[in-house]
């Protein structure tokens, strides 16, 4: 499922790992209307994001529909080269996606 994956980059520098990730998601607010039918497009957005280092979560985020389509996220954590970073999300329909990478 390449579509629901999280693209990840993790770079370690001076004891800090800089993580950049891109999630592929439509992030519908539920407020937008379909131009043709005039019906509201149902909300569909990421609600929770969990980031872990070597299996231990260091950050969890609650997203609102305010976040842009295909969310981009940059976070940092204390760590060294080789630490395994993983980022996963769950949306309001219960779907989820994740990505994993060792810090360079």
């Amino acid at each position, binding site marked *: 499922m390449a579509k629901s994956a999280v693209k990840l980059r993790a770079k370690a520098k001076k004891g800090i790992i800089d993580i950049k990730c891109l999630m592929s998601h439509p992030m519908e607010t539920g407020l937008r209307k379909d131009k043709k039918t005039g019906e509201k497009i149902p909300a569909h957005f990421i609600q929770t994001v969990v980031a872990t280092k070597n299996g231990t979560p260091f950050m969890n985020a609650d997203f609102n529909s305010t*976040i*842009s389509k295909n969310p*981009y996220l*940059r976070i940092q954590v204390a760590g060294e080269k080789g630490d395994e970073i993983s980022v996963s999300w769950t949306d309001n329909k219960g779907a989820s996606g994740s990505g994993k990478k060792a810090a360079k």
Partner: protein
Amino acid sequence: MKRRLFMKGTLAGSAITAALGAGLLAPRAVLAAWPEAEMLAADVADTGMASGSVKIKAPEIAENGAVVPVTVDATGVDGIVESISIVAAANQRPLGATYHMKEGAIPFVSTRLKMGKTGDVFGVVKTASGTVNAKTQVKVTIGGCGG
């Protein structure tokens, strides 16, 4: 093997649909941790005091309101940062996201927001001793010439 997977998928799918139909298992039950009331509120009650120790970076003029990059840096804040929230005051749902920091996390986040119109963007940082914020104004000129 494929057939088995397919069967599993259909079964799981129908279970969820049934639960939704019954109205018992609303989406919030699936994601119990998601603070629904807070997320859907029209205003954010507690943004705390303005503080110079929080740094927020966002463009002065956003030509495309659908993608407004915002960075909040709270590394200068005293004490342990519990969470960072990004709030776009002019939005229908102002609270954009809350990042809960745990051990090891550096209080620094960067993301992209959708903004309906021009307004202030707050970076709200919660520590054990209180809440501090920083704000910056973002002008949204959808479809404009960037003026």
